[in-house]
Each structure stands twice: as C-alpha cells, then as structure tokens.
C-alpha cells in the first residue's frame, strides 16, 4: 500500500507540471490537485516531522539519563533546555500581546543562544588557519595548483589584495567564473541525474529504505 501511494502521488506531481485541463474522473486538473491538496498536505507532514525530531531527541537523551551513560549530565542539560525553552516559546506564541514575555524570550535568544552559535562559527577561523598551514603543501602538481588557486582567491577576496596588485580581484573572479563554474556545473548535472535515478527507484518500489523496511530489494 505505501508503495502504491508513493507511485500514485509521484506520478501526479510529475504530470502536474506538464498537463492542463480537468481529469475526467476527478473533475479537476492535475496542477490544481497538486497545488490545492498535495502541496498543503506536504507542508503539514513537514510540520509533524519537526515534532517527530523532538520526540526522537527526548527518547534518545532520556535513555542516556536513565542508564547513566557517559556524559549523561549533558543529556539532562539538553532536555531541561528543550523543555524550558519550548514551554516559554509556546507561551509567547499563544500570548502574542504579552510584550514582556516576548522581550524575555528574545533576551534568551539574542544574548545566550545567538552568541554561543556565533562563537562556534567564529572558532572556524582559527581551525581554518591551522588546517591551511598544515594541509597546503606543494607536494605534487595537483596540490600546487590548489595552493596557488587558494592564495589567489584569498588575495582577490580581501581588500588588501587589490592594494597589493589591482588585478587580484579580476583573477579571483576568473577563477570563480571559469574553472569553478565548470566543476560546479558538472557536479550539479551529475547530482541531478543521480537524484532522478533515486526518485525513479523510489517510485517503482525498488528503493524501500524510506519505509523503514531495509534497503533496495
């Protein structure tokens, strides 16, 4: 049954882009069927997926706490944060006129969560500096090309590069527009063909892992 639903829905979605006019039995066109019914269903299902993720998170970390696995205290902090923040958010959503609650909610987000996340991102600068120093060695031709390209792009992207030599931004743009774009397009086309094949396998029931019943048959 789930395979039949997958096949029917995917055929409707595919045909909705290339057909017009009402379908005799149901009386409406396939684009109308997709836009009026299937598309809103998909949005509702996606919203449920968010709930499912929360439930999964609670189950995994509750297990860690009850069995007192290694670093279980972090699981406890995570669950406490999830519940408190979730409850606070729900209250704010249900009471949009309570400006104090909304301001306090923003306070947590802007002054605790946001700096933590931004700080984590900022740490990447240090890792990138250290990793570049250790990895960029001109050991062979390919590594040398990569090294030179990286330096040219860095100098082209930073204002100091054009101060050293005004052509660095032009070279950087050429590297983006020609060698980079060639590689990116090849990747995009390859990925598109790959995802088409994956869709076809799912439509025809060859790929069943999304149903939780193992891999392909």
């Amino acid at each position, binding site marked *: 049954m789930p395979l039949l639903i997958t096949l029917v829905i995917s055929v409707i979605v595919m045909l909705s882009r290339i057909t017009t006019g009402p379908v005799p039995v149901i009386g409406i066109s396939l684009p109308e069927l997709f836009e009026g019914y299937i598309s809103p269903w998909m949005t509702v299902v*996606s919203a449920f997926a968010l709930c499912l993720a929360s439930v999964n998170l609670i189950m995994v970390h509750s297990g860690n706490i009850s069995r007192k696995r290694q670093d279980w205290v972090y699981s406890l902090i995570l669950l406490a944060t999830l519940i408190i923040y979730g409850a606070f958010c729900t209250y704010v959503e249900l009471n*949009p006129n309570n400006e104090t609650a909304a301001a306090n909610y*923003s306070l947590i987000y802007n002054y605790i969560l946001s700096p933590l*996340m931004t700080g984590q*991102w900022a740490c990447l600068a240090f890792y990138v500096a250290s990793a*570049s120093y250790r990895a960029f060695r001109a050991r062979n031709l390919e590594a040398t090309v990569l090294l030179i390209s990286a330096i040219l792009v860095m*100098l082209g992207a*930073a204002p*100091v590069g054009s101060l050293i030599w005004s052509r660095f931004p032009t070279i950087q*743009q050429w590297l983006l527009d020609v060698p980079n774009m060639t590689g990116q397009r090849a990747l995009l086309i390859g990925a598109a063909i790959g995802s088409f094949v994956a869709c076809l396998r799912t439509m025809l029931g060859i790929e069943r892992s999304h149903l939780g019943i193992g891999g392909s048959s």
Partner: protein
Amino acid sequence: MEKMQNVDTRIIYIVLLIVLSVPLLRPIGIPMQISPMTRAVYDIIEGLNPEKDVVLLSMDYSPGAGLDAEVCPVAVVEHLMQRGIKWIAISFGTTDGPMMTNRIIADLEQRGYKYGEDFANLGYMAGEENAVRLFALDCLSVPTDVRGNKTSELPVMQGIKTIKDFAFVIQFSMGTPEMWIRQVVDPMGVLFATGTVTVSVPSIVPYYNSGQVKGVMGGVSSAAQYELLCNKPGRGAAMMDAQSMGHLIIIFFIALGNIGYFMSKKGKETPPSK
C-alpha cells in the same frame, strides 16, 4: 626546518587573534573594489519604485552562520528603508529566521519605522521546498504574522496574492538557492537574487552566470561593499580590515610551511659532506 613545518597550533591561534583584534579596534580603512555580483543587487533595488513595489526577503539563516550571514540582510534592509521600499520577510529554511528578522525589525522600530506598514514578518513556514511553492502560489496561505496579526489585513500585504506581486525576491541563507530556482524563478519568472555566507558563493556562480540569479551577496565582504554603495558604512565595512589581515596571516603561515617543506626536502636530497 622542522620547526617551520610544525609551528605550535597555539602560536597560530594567538597570532591570528591579535591580527584580527587590532584592526577591529583601530580600523585601517583599506579601500575596497565593488564586485559586479554585489552591485547587481544594489542596481535592482535602485531600479524599484517606492510607490508601488514590495520586496520579499526569505530569511533562511541562523546565528550558527555568524555575522557572515547576518550583515548582508542588514545592509539590504538599510538600503530598502533609505529608498522607502516596503518589504515582507518569511522563513522556509530554518526556524531561526523569524528571530533574525525580529532583530532587524527592533532596530527599525526604534528609528520610527512602522511594523505592518513599512515591513512585516510572516514567521516560519514548515516544508522547505514545498512550502516555497505553496507560498509562491498563495501568499495568504500564511494566515497570521509573528505578532498574531491577520496577514490579509496588514497594510503592507495589500495587493499581494502570489509571488508575482513582489517586485523582487531575495533569499538570505547559509547555502545555495536551488529550491527557489526550481519552484519559483524558473516556472514563474520572478526577479531573484541571493545573499549567503562566503563559502557558498562558488556554488551559486553557475546560477548567476546563467541569469537565473540576478545578483549575489557573499558574506561580510559583499555587505561591506554594499554599505559603501549606500554611503553608509556599517558593521560589514568595519570587519573588512580584520578580514584582510586574517587572509594575509594565513598566507604567511602557508608560505612558512612550504618554505620549511622545500628546505627540508632539499636537505634530504643533498648528500652529507664528508
């Protein structure tokens, strides 16, 4: 030679920290060149009509992408406000989007701009690519905004029914805009640009060169260029000197490692003298 190849990570971190901090505290003011991809976004907004045009901002980034993602929408919104162009924000890619929009709105409200009349925040719509399509076909499918107002009653939403009613759509994200291109740009012919983090720019270049994406803003450097175009240097411009110094110090360490590598290689190849 071994020492040149194996500089302690802590030394690299400390040197980088100093080199990044000094220009942030005492900016040098290195002149910048404006990228054509950034200028394209500026030109589109300059060409809009403040009397009737409304812009849609898809706010699909979180604080996890740092200031690299945040400075671009701030610069674009500043330009929109300068020109008196109304805008609406919505998020599809991350639940953080509405909060990031609220940060921009809080500043605008302090400056006297009116929520609902000059701009609105429609919040997060679950479903990613599918939600983009759904919203594109019916912009009133989001019944209320983040403040509980009916979307259909917001003054800024008057005359907006489908995505085609927006004069310009710009997505601010941490990645690439494929879902917008597949669901909106190609099938509906909407004027579209994107702002993203610097590392994602190379992946967007094919779409820019094909004309599907009309303009690209990539991280702090684009935001800084945009601020200069608007004659209002802000956080982006302030960070550019630090970025320049950071790039130079990384190039210095790469050169140091390579000099050490080649010298040690040469030392091994040369037979020891008797």
